[in-house]
């Protein structure tokens, strides 16, 4: 092979990996924005009148994933990929992506919310923020991904930063504290598994279709399994929200959240699970920014320090262009 051609191909591969890094950063920005919007939405009518914080949060998650499934389908119509939905659902790898949706959505998010409910946000957030490290390790074992030492340090720094950002002195009485810790750990493992499982499926399935299928499966499991387990209250909250401004806000948040998933899945496919997750966890930084911009979030020293640590971690993850293209062994 001609040396010039080799050089051109190498440049193309590096450009591809850099795009993957860009998508990973975008995933973090959009997820931070999405989180702030969802927080604002669930603080409005009719949710603010309801008791049962857990039910409200899970109904919100169900609505979010339902709207996101719709938005992603519209995006796939616009980019000409929508015909692949039916073709993909007939294949075995689709079951892999359906599993990823079940694990990451209802199991992961429910575990996260239960952890916050039973153990408090301080500890729950710290534990769930570990998911990039778990995802990177699972990627090494199951996908034979390469994690350079420098990238590993960057992932740990990003995790440390998000823990610092999310830290708040524990308040209140939590009689089921250790059960809450177990649920938080379940959430971290679930989100890590979602990344690895979906990346495995995306070896053969287009990433945008994978997200579409993921959102549909997550929404249906919420609607048909999770909400019925909570009880009639959850459906009362769900249907009573139609017509309120918060309903539209959640739809908009879901567009942003769907965009975040599209970016995250692209990033995992293009630059590997470990690096993509390490970049995605920068959502903690962006949730601070958008929280300050759109709500009454007060900037504190731990927020500022956490943001700085995340930025350093992100720069370390991105690193040099060479070696970016070699994702797997």
């Amino acid at each position, binding site marked *: 092979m001609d040396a010039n051609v080799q050089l051109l191909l190498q440049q193309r591969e590096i450009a591809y990996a850099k795009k993957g890094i860009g998508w990973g950063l975008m995933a973090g920005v959009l997820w931070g924005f999405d989180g702030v919007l969802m927080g604002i939405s669930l603080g409005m009518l009719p949710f603010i009148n309801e008791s049962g914080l857990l039910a409200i949060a899970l109904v919100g998650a169900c609505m979010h994933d339902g709207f996101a499934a719709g938005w992603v389908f519209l995006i796939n119509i616009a980019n000409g990929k929508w015909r692949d939905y039916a073709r993909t659902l007939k294949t075995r790898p689709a079951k892999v992506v359906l599993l990823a949706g079940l694990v990451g959505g209802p199991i992961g998010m429910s575990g996260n919310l239960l952890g916050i409910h039973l153990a408090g946000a301080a500890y729950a957030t710290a534990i769930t923020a570990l998911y990039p490290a778990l995802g990177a390790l699972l990627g090494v074992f199951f996908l034979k991904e390469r994690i350079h030492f420098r990238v590993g340090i960057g992932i740990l720094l990003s995790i440390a930063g998000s823990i610092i950002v999310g830290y708040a002195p524990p308040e209140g009485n939590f009689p089921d504290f250790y059960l809450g810790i177990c649920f938080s750990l379940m959430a971290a493992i679930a989100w890590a598994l979602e990344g690895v499982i979906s990346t495995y499926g995306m070896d*053969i399935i287009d990433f945008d279709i994978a997200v579409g299928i993921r959102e549909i499966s997550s929404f249906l499991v919420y609607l048909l399994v999770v909400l019925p387990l909570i009880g009639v209250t959850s459906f009362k909250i769900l249907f009573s929200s139609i017509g309120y401004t918060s309903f539209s806000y959640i739809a908009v948040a879901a567009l942003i959240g769907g965009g975040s998933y599209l970016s995250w899945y692209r990033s995992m496919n293009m630059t590997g699970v470990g690096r993509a997750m390490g970049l995605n966890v920068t959502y903690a930084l962006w949730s601070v920014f958008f929280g300050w911009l759109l709500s009454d979030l007060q900037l504190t020293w731990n927020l500022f320090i956490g943001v700085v640590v995340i930025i350093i971690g992100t720069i370390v993850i991105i690193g040099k262009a060479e070696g970016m293209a070699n994702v797997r062994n």
Partner: protein
Amino acid sequence: MAKQLPIKARVLSLVFEKIGISDAEILTALKTEYPLDKQVSEKNLEMCLIALTTSKMITLMDANLKNNGKIEQNFKITEYGYHRLKYLFSIGQ
């Protein structure tokens, strides 16, 4: 009528069917088999082939610079790619 595979999977199966297949041949086959699919384009195929190469499903055999300045690449399936393809077909499609 044979069931159509998702496009990325079809690219992999085309590489399996002919060792050393070129990207131009793959694009021609896709345009014939998926005439209504807007996503079948040179740019999307390039992304797809890079993705399959990065995930070690296919490997580049040769590449040449053509007179029009474009690179023509030739691919073959890897053992890993073959096993993933076998898994895809094992559901009795």
